């Protein structure tokens, strides 16, 4: 019975998470304009993530080995070279008319070759490891570049695939389920450069999971190619991807490099006077919140929200911190005869009022047009504020606790204890005497021993305050 219950619970959890991950991300179309804000290698420098989830010890060793093989004597010179390398890549990308991930990888690889930094796939990987190891880039960019380099390598060595004729049964099935090849693959007709974006668009158009299975997609791509909806090159790439990716990987939607760079240049350390050194005190931005895809809080923020949304969210805490730090605050009653009755808040009232006002403003922002189709939690506000430099790493642990004013939290231990005492208390009723008396005494003893003796003070008990 319990096994069945556990199975049902796990299924529900999986379903909700997959739903959440799907609904969390709105697909950002690639921009064709050269509107990317002026971004420099300095902004790419990682001063937010205390550690990397994806860089292993082996990767670091490879990176160090690669660095020694490069004929540059000093570490400082090498660091400078990395900066210049990144600057050039960004410059080329910025100047490019079409900004998609393929282009970025193309500039990355070319620049690495021109500067004799990396010629082979292994060297390119080591270069990326080194950039991450030295914090020239963060986990988000590192992961994206690694992924595209790997896929690029697969495409290079993709074998020529024999084209099979699609069976009548398959074609009938397509007609029956109203799957129109032209609509699905039209994206490859209009723009055949941004392959990865188009690939994800195509997958999105095949709504159901059953259409994303390997066998179905194989037949679909074969049929599309035979109908000349896609070119041979695209066909090979699609078949290669279909071969190397499993169903889960096909369902993952990745952050676009262009989107990421654009948002980064618009929000990172916007309110911070100078770039702080990476502070090891908090791993908050690096916490994995979507375990299946291993997405950190920071990546989640960049995926889900636009520049304006992140700025608005960070402003919530900016205003709150200003209110908390205000010299004084007061409540004013203005009477009909224009007389004012002023009540000056005590420091604690000012503090609580600031936090309650934060809660009110969160509700107002939720109702706004900008967030009409985007939900957010308090944790997203904290992430946004940290990203824009409104709050510092060592302040996060205390700012997170603001939420407890409207969502008081109990520790897991307390929750389990309460559950145990409640269940035992109810069970004691059904025991025969004298066991019910012994049980009741045991419960009382348990409460005395295990429950916190410290009385929790509440503002309501203080007659000297109004908030």
């Amino acid at each position: 019975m319990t096994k069945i219950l556990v199975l049902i619970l796990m299924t529900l959890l999986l379903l909700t998470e997959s739903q959440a991950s799907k609904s969390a991300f709105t697909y950002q179309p690639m921009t064709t304009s050269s509107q990317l804000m002026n971004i420099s290698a300095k902004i790419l420098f990682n001063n937010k993530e205390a550690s990397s989830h994806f860089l292993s010890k082996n990767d670091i060793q490879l990176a160090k080995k690669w660095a020694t093989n490069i004929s540059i004597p000093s570490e400082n010179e090498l660091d400078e070279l990395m900066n210049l390398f990144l600057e050039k890549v960004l410059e080329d990308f910025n100047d490019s008319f079409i900004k998609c991930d393929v282009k970025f990888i193309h500039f990355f690889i070319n620049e690495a070759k021109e500067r004799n930094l990396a010629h082979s796939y292994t060297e390119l990987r080591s270069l990326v490891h080194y950039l991450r190891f030295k914090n020239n880039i963060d986990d988000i960019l590192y992961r994206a570049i690694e992924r595209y380099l790997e896929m690029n390598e697969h495409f290079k060595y993709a074998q020529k695939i024999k084209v099979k004729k699609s069976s009548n049964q398959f074609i009938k099935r397509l007609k029956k389920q109203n799957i129109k090849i032209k609509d699905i693959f039209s994206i490859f007709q209009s723009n055949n450069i941004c392959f990865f974006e188009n690939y994800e668009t195509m997958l999105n158009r095949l709504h159901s999971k059953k259409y994303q299975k390997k066998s179905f997609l194989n037949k679909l791509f074969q049929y599309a190619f035979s109908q000349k909806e896609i070119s041979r090159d695209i066909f090979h790439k699609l078949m290669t991807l279909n071969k190397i990716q499993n169903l889960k990987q096909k369902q993952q939607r990745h952050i676009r490099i262009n989107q990421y760079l654009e948002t980064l240049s618009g929000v990172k350390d916007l309110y911070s006077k100078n770039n702080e050194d990476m502070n090891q005190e908090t791993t908050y931005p690096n916490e994995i919140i979507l375990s299946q895809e291993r997405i950190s809080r920071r990546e989640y923020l960049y995926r889900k929200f636009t520049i304006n949304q992140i700025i608005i969210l960070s402003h919530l805490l900016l205003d709150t911190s200003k209110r908390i730090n205000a010299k004084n605050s007061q409540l004013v009653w203005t009477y009909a005869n224009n007389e004012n009755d002023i009540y000056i808040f005590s420091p604690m009232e000012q503090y609580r009022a600031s936090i309650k006002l934060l809660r009110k403003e969160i509700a107002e922002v939720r109702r706004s047009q900008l967030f009409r189709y985007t939900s957010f939690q308090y944790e997203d506000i904290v992430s946004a504020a940290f990203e824009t430099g409104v709050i510092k790493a060592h302040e996060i642990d205390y700012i997170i606790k603001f939420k407890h004013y409207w969502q008081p939290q109990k520790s897991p231990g307390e929750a389990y204890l309460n559950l145990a005492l409640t269940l035992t208390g109810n069970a004691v009723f059904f025991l025969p005497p004298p066991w019910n008396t012994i049980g009741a005494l045991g419960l009382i003893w348990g409460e005395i021993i295990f429950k916190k003796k410290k009385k929790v003070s509440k503002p309501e008990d203080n007659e000297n305050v109004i908030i």
Partner: protein
Amino acid sequence: MKPFYKKITPFFFSFNFIKIIILFFFALYFSAFSMNHKQSENQVIEFDVLLRDKNSYKTIVKKTEMINLISRHSFHGKYFKIVEDKSDEAISFQHKSKVLIQKAATVYYHLNKSREFWINDMKSSFALHHPTITVRLEIKNKFNDLGQFSHDSLSPQYNNALSIPAGQGPDWLPKDERRVWGNEIWFRPKKMVPMIIPSEQNPLTQMLSSLKKPLMNFSLNKFIIDVMTNLKDKKNISQMSRNSFLNFVSLYALIEFSLLASKKSDFLFIDKTFYLDAAFIPEIIYHEYAHIVLSDYLELSHSTPVNEGMADYFAAVQSKLRKVYQSIKGFSNAAAKDTQASKPYHHWDESNENATSDFTLSVLWNIRHILGERESDILVYHARKYLRTKSAHINDHLLRALLQSCQDKCQNPFRDKLKMYESFSEKGF
């Protein structure tokens, strides 16, 4: 020819010889005196002083050097002059009362030690440049801001200590009659005062009172059940019912007797008399000197929860003990103040009548746990700049002063202020 002795005898009896002899002895005497004098100048002056044993509440008497003395005959130092009652002369080392000498030595030693703390640790320029403070022992007169001392017979004071602000007599008095005084510390004499013991307050009486009703009810119920059972069975009152009745009566008598006896045992839990020889309690000495040092901003006009709490705080810092003013047998049986008192804020804590409670001390002491000892001491000391004795409430002014002080002094002001807000919230603000 005259013999030799006849030749020299007249010389010995001549006036010149006598002069030489006198001069010789005179020279001998002065040289001896000067040697003694030099020796006594270099001699360290030590007296028995009452101290707390290292990091404990136990007290010991230890011979300790009296530093910074100006006089070699009395307790007149560069920074503190210990006098008796209304006198302006320092207490002599040869005073007839040995207890008074020990008291003076104790006060002198601890005050100098406290001064070093304020100058070296807290970098107080006010303490560094403060003129000599007169410290009065065994003074019973109330303070009068016009003439310094109230009349001798007007409400003599005992079992206390206070710091008085500098002042002078009124302008309408002639100059030569106008008394001028600086900041002073007064220690009242000890007096055994009978305690007013509230009835039924000792723990034994309280426990018996709470047990009385349920026990009596249980016994009575048993008796009634037995009687009803007999009646139901239409039997005469049985032996069992008689036993129940006897049990009930005897239990009642036992409880009443125990209650009466417990009231007589108040002495086991509550002292009959109260006494406090403040000059022998090191923390009280630190406390009073702290009032003087903080008086550059917190004027010495009257006791408020804030200024008393701040002085308690620095007394606790210097004593390095959790509980301050712990009783010392023979000198004090006053209640101690706990730096970690857990009582939450109540608006009555703002009342001047509760100025001597340990609530403010616990609020300030909590800051040590969250910011660190050194940082907290600096912060609390700096906070006095934002306070005045007349307008200092804990809930408002003290918290605001502490937060403002953190803004000025903390390394990470916003974070540290958030920590302080959390701490204040736990205290019930």
